[in-house]
């Protein structure tokens, strides 16, 4: 396998550059320092590694040709969506061809009766949200907390979760079908679409699990059929506050029992001061009428959480109509430094108190304002718990602290009985060191079968 510092097997760089131009056109290939510089960076703390070429394809057929070229010349291929995983999942560790997939941004179909959207892989969250609001106001999708420039397919591919996580689970549970370019170049479809039917269901056909959670190491998703859900006329957020983290799992349990909420998130953070030391719940509610909204609020705040309020242990802060697009970018500015990274984990809800306490301690030890958050998945089957570490990009010391804090937190997540969600290289090695050896062996076999030349996003999920 070639590395960034050694010459390629096969063709010389000039020939490859020309071959790429022949595939996508000169405007969409670059080997210039500016593109190589920008695309070498993840927005978190991962060290940059330069690709050799940046290519922006428009069709699966173009990707197929690039893959053929890469296989012949044993060149790594790294698929990139929004680039907002903040875990270095699309950093070209061994150089190669960085595929910026965002030109493939057509919303192909929205089927409002079967409630799905068929999207190219580069469609962004913001684009889909806006499209549905304007053209299909009765439909919505589960939008994650990432900036709206994040791609839908990228988020699904890393088992993301969004603001419908409580009733409907992970975003990867919402897939009706995929089109994938395999590491050997074949274009495959999975789900009902593969037998010529519409893209309305994945089950009961053979699974697409080998393309989700594999960070692009098993193939490149080029199309996705995503389940959509009813969007009610009134949507907004109610807030509930407790000051004792031990109460958080019980509050989650009570709210989920009512089955009235769309999204339940508990968070605590140093900045701004009103949030410090307290656990705020943001509870998204949706209703088609004031009557329905009042009914839901009554069940949650008067009934399920009523005794918290009466005892004075929990406070209701009202309901505000309208859902805001996520403003997570502001977290990057807390150290006036343009950067943050976070450890996301999938944890049992019961572990919230310990996750909070230990995370706060790690942050404070590294001089970082603490920020933690837990998003309910399913009926409190699990939560996505994140510990966020802001840093100042102009201050290497703060980046070092953030990185150290994240490594500690990766270990903490596993120690507390959870798993690391979308781990970077360090977290991947921790997970693999604990993985069932037969499972690890199977992963290796699958990878070798699908990607015999080892070209797909090398460095990530490499089983030793």
């Amino acid at each position, binding site marked *: 396998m070639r590395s960034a510092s050694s010459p390629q097997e096969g063709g010389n760089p000039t020939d490859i550059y020309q071959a790429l131009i022949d595939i996508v056109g000169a405007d969409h290939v670059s080997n210039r*320092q500016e593109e190589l510089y920008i695309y070498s960076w993840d927005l978190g703390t991962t060290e940059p590694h330069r690709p050799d070429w940046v290519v922006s394809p428009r069709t699966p057929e173009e990707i197929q040709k690039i893959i053929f070229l890469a296989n012949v010349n044993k060149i790594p291929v790294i698929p990139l969506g929004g*680039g907002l995983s903040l875990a270095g999942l699309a950093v070209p560790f061994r150089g190669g061809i960085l595929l910026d997939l965002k030109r493939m941004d057509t919303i192909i179909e929205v089927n409002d009766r079967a409630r799905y959207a068929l999207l190219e892989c580069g469609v962004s969250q*913001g684009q889909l949200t806006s499209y549905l609001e304007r053209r299909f106001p009765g439909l919505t999708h589960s939008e994650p907390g990432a900036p709206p420039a994040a791609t839908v397919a990228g988020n699904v591919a890393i088992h993301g979760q969004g603001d419908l996580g409580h009733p409907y689970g992970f975003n990867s549970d919402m897939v009706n079908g995929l089109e994938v370019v395999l590491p050997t170049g074949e274009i495959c479809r999975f789900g009902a679409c593969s037998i010529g039917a519409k893209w309305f269901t994945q089950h009961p056909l053979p699974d697409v699990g080998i393309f989700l959670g594999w960070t692009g190491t098993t193939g490149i998703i080029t199309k996705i059929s995503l389940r959509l859900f009813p969007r009610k006329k009134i949507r907004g957020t109610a807030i509930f506050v407790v000051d004792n983290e031990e109460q958080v799992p019980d509050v989650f349990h009570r709210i989920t029992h009512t089955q009235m909420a769309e999204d339940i998130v508990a968070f605590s953070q140093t900045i701004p001061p009103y949030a410090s030391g307290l656990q705020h719940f943001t509870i998204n509610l949706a209703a088609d009428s004031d009557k329905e909204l009042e009914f839901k609020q009554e069940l949650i705040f008067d009934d399920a959480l009523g005794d918290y309020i009466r005892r004075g242990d929990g406070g209701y802060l009202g309901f505000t109509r309208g859902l805001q697009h996520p403003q997570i970018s502001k977290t990057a500015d807390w150290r006036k430094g343009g950067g943050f990274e976070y450890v996301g984990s999938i944890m049992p809800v019961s572990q919230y108190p310990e996750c909070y306490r230990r995370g706060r301690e790690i942050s404070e030890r590294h001089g970082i304002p603490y920020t933690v958050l837990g998003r309910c998945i399913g009926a409190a089957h699990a939560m996505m718990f994140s510990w966020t570490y802001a840093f100042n990009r102009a201050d290497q010391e703060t980046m070092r602290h953030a990185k150290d804090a994240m490594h500690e937190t990766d270990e903490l997540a596993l120690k507390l009985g959870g798993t690391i969600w979308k781990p970077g290289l360090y977290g991947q090695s921790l997970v693999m060191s604990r993985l069932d050896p037969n499972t690890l062996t199977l992963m290796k076999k699958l990878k070798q079968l699908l990607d015999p030349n080892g070209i797909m996003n090398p460095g990530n999920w490499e089983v030793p």
Partner: protein
Amino acid sequence: MNITDFKYEEIIHRCFRCGYCKFPVNWMDVNNCPAYARYRMETYSCGGRLWLTRAWLTDAIQWSDHLAHILYSCTSCKNCEIKCPLGINVDIINMIRAAKGIMVEKGRIPKEARDFLENIQVHGNPYGIPKSKRGDWMGATSLEIYKNQEYLYHVGCVGSHDTRVQEAARKLGRVLQRGGVSFGVLGRDERCDGNEVKNMGEEALFEMMAQENIARFNKLGVKKIVTLSPHSYNALKNDYPLYGSNFEILHYTRLLLNLIEKDRLHLNVNIPVKVTFHDPCFLGRWNSEYDAPRRILAAIPGVKLVEMERSRENALCCGGGGGNFCMDLLGGSPDSSARRRVREALATGVAILAVACPKCLTILEDAVKVEGLDDRLIVKDIAEIVDEACGTT
């Protein structure tokens, strides 16, 4: 390079590259930055530009033609400032200007930019047309030279020299006459206001131009200026006061609206047509004027205004700002913002795409031709539509 010499050293690293800057306010498309829309490489987005600037100033990368191209592809449309959720948002264009300024100082700017600025310096316009020709746009009109009338009508470089836009300039003059406005023009004595010069990083030249213009206007006793171009409007209203000017500045749409509402302009001719309006960046996002053009169109009998999905603060820039109406760094592709914009206009089912900016007029009309839409869509300045509605045609 030394980043400590950069005025915005303290904040340039704060860009997170979250990508908000690529979207309009209504999120409908990731292509609301004209440079990113054209090239679809992260380097051409606002965030990419800021990161590359910092990389250059810290010697992580070297200056190159490509870097200069990336910097100068910014049209200063302000979409990024409006979208950026961080506190640095108010200085994004300032940072890009400052970076361009460093390139100008070192003489390392794209050839197109160098030609533009040299032409301004020598000929007073970016086209390289002799100063003596500046008044030719007046043609056989009865427009008067400025001599203490109430308003100075400032036409700008594009209105003075671009043959298509000269039509709009003349028609505006005719409409102002029809409305009984007391105004004069400078004709061949008019000089460029410098808005693009400033946005291209030539701060020193801009200062000189501003001071000369202010002196000229003061000598002539100018009190009020009405501009054809929102770019001129912006410079005269927002930048010139820093050099001691004290004039009342209006974009012509405000003046026309005033005339219509005071019944001094009678729009008698019925124009039964669907029209959409393209918000110019320097009128809309830069100066928060979205209403006057719309109210004018609403007052014209027969006109039905249809909004594009990206309108007002969501508008996609035509790609002409930052000198690009002349340098054309963003052309040559169906992905150019001008071609995208005319396709969007066509999708609304209108026959006329109305504009209120000379640069938008010339760029969008060219885009219509390149897209082969001449028989389906006409680009007209609002002044031209009002002229028709007054029956002065």
